[in-house]
């Protein structure tokens, strides 16, 4: 059969970063995939070397707007690893609260976008409406909706006021009933099941071979979570469960994320209730020569920072490894063999939400046929409609 190349990229009608995919298809089946990145490269590792240890946190925060807590968290842990120090107890709890708030809003964001790609705009609107409540809570705690600027080497910048705690807990509690309703609507839905079950399977072996991280690995049955493996912050002081499923398809990734939202709500509330008293900053004087590594479980997986210091006030080298860097190449294992209308949701399943672009050209042997980016979403949404029609 004639092979067709489908370029997807780099700009698409949805949000998120530009990415360029090249899908090679035979009829409707994808046989090969290649990813080209670099449309977002800003040279942050080099910039971080120009700034002092304290200033770096602000640059690091802007690596990713959705992970704007995980990166500073990993970076501050790396700097603290150079000094071999522990932060004050209260700072640990505040860090955990902020990190879990971020996880809730990130997972809700993904759930909404996944619903949109499948033609379920109701899920999209509900999830994003719930997300606003969490963002409000974060605004009360930190003063901004997204870039919180709460972290600094040695502690946190701002304290949580005692008056704010009941307000925030009430805000978080308010999303729980709707979240339970949404969970039922998503997990028990037969159409959604038909679109996601058995689609884009990442086997346990592949998951290990690609070193997949976070929900992508946990959905394949690899119990891998930095919060449990090498506990940091206040995660060892509160009760919570690691969610692991075994099938590795898109549905399991969805289930892992939805259930993790409930765990995060549990951790966040528990931490706010049992916030210990004391200092929030251990006031680091100077950073000795040496090297340190910080690992943190970001919403998408393990976030890794390596910092080397030579005794001056600037890092000599700062290496950042975001979770998507390891998860993205798993496309080679998941997309191949699937139909092109499923490619959208498989690309979205690891949570970078690249689905399609404004310039798609499908050329086959019979002549030229041009699709734009919307058509790929349309293909995906039409498939859902077909299944839905069949069920009635």
């Amino acid at each position: 059969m004639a092979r067709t190349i489908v370029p997807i990229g780099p700009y698409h009608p949805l949000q998120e970063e530009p990415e360029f995919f090249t899908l090679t298809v035979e009829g409707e089946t994808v046989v090969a995939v290649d990813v080209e990145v670099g449309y977002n490269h800003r040279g942050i590792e080099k910039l971080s070397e120009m700034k002092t240890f304290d200033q770096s946190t602000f640059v690091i925060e802007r690596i990713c707007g959705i992970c704007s807590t995980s990166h500073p968290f990993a970076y501050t842990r790396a700097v603290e690893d150079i000094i071999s120090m522990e932060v004050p107890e209260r700072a640990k709890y505040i860090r955990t609260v902020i990190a879990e708030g971020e996880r809730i809003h990130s997972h809700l964001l993904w759930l909404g976008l996944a619903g949109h790609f499948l033609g379920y705009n109701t899920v999209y609107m509900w999830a994003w409406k719930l997300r606003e409540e969490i963002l409000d809570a974060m605004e009360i705690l930190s003063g901004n909706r997204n870039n919180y600027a709460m972290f600094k080497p040695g502690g946190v910048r701002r304290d949580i006021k005692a008056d704010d705690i009941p307000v925030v807990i009430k805000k978080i509690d308010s999303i729980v009933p709707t979240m339970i309703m949404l969970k039922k609507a998503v997990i028990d839905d037969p159409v959604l099941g038909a679109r996601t079950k058995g689609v884009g399977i990442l086997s346990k072996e592949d998951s290990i071979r690609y070193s997949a991280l976070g929900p992508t690995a946990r959905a394949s049955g690899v119990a891998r979570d930095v919060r449990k493996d090498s506990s940091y912050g206040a995660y060892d002081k509160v009760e919570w469960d690691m969610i692991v499923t075994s099938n590795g398809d898109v549905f399991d990734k969805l289930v892992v994320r939805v259930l993790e939202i409930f765990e995060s709500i549990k951790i966040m509330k528990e931490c706010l209730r049992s916030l210990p008293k004391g200092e929030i900053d251990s006031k680091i004087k100077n950073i000795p020569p040496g090297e340190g590594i910080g690992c943190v479980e970001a919403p998408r997986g393990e976030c890794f920072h390596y910092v080397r210091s030579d005794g001056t006030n600037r890092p000599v080298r700062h290496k950042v490894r975001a979770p998507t860097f390891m998860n993205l190449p798993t496309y080679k294992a998941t997309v191949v063999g699937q139909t092109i209308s499923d490619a959208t949701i498989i690309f979205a399943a690891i949570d970078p939400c690249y689905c399609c672009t404004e310039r798609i050209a499908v050329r086959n042997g019979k002549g030229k046929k041009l699709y734009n980016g919307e058509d790929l979403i349309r293909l995906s949404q039409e498939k859902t409609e077909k299944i839905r029609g069949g069920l009635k």
Partner: protein
Amino acid sequence: MKRGDVLENINQRFKEEIIDVIDKSSTRVYIEIKPCSLVKVAKYVFEELGARFNIASGLDVRSHMEILYHFIFEEINLLISFRVKLDRAKPEIDSLTPIFEAANWIEREIYEMLGVKFKGHPDLRKLFLSDDWPDGVHPLRCDYKEWDRKAIRDRGV
């Protein structure tokens, strides 16, 4: 497997290849090895000891190049970083991509950022930088200078 066993195993097996061991803390160990033995060590650690390849980080110290390969043992919470030192004039090392797919992208990144050549990499091309980026200019080297005459670096205020 306990922490001591893992370190003992590596020490026993690669007595010749290990140059230096820094036991920094209970969770962090840095081991310097000879560049020629990297593939052997990585294969053993990944396949037989069951560690996860975390990432590699390359850095340019003025006297030489360094690449650190970080492996994590999740069950015992131990992170071992294998350090190789390369000649700055002609940095070359064997690729790990044939052993595990996870090393593919990071080797491409180090190749373009520091100019380290990975022998045996199936697809060594640029990852992040644009096509008009000049050859032989590596932004993370410490002697990097601005090459683009058109770049504007003041805010105009």
